[in-house]
């Protein structure tokens, strides 16, 4: 079992069930020990491939997917997911190669800002994206960019 095997399993299971697998679930599916899978989860976090909830082995982010609800719900034919930010919300249809409807809202006034992706093209793309933190500092605090 490689870290890549764990990553692919984690992503596929996340997409299938709408939530990331626990260490025990991944270990059972990959026919590996929980100790080995836990070590793989930690290495994937160190490599900035996933983010674990602080002090736990629970996956918080496996970009572009968020394990907790966010203001960026994304409806697709495979299910409804949450992006970590608007980039990640758009990343979900980009990753899946499918249509999507993102029920975003303006961060300033809260008005709905629905965004549709159809046949690989963005519809309703009148809004503006804003990144607060320069690229080189994203991982200082990945929960705030």
């Amino acid at each position, binding site marked *: 079992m490689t870290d890549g095997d764990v990553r692919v399993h984690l992503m596929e299971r996340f997409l299938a069930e709408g939530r990331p697998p626990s260490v025990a679930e991944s270990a059972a599916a990959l026919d590996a020990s929980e100790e080995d899978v836990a070590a793989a989860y930690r290495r994937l976090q160190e490599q900035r491939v996933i983010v674990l909830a602080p002090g736990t082995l629970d996956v918080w982010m496996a*970009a572009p997917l968020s394990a907790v609800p966010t203001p960026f719900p994304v409806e697709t034919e495979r299910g409804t997911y949450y992006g970590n930010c608007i980039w990640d919300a758009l990343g979900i249809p980009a990753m899946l190669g499918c249509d999507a409807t993102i029920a975003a809202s303006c961060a300033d006034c809260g008005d709905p800002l629905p965004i549709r992706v159809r046949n690989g093209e963005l519809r309703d793309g009148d809004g503006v994206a804003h990144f607060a933190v320069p690229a080189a500092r994203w991982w200082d605090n990945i929960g705030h960019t």
Partner: protein
Amino acid sequence: MLAFRSEEHVDWWLAARRLRRGSAFTLEQAWSLANGWYSDRLDPAWRRKTPEEAEAVFAAAGLTGDFWRLRPSD
């Protein structure tokens, strides 16, 4: 990264929080960024992008300059 109705709303949001402007760009550019970044994410052979590769994805979306630089400047 957040979404706003317009540039004006970005300015109002920043002013209310006394934050400095970062980088604002169109949702079309964000879509280009998302495609360049995530379209290969389910490939078993996926690996993290090098700083050079990441900067190339940014540049393909028209995002350049110091804000988007990952490598030390020459």
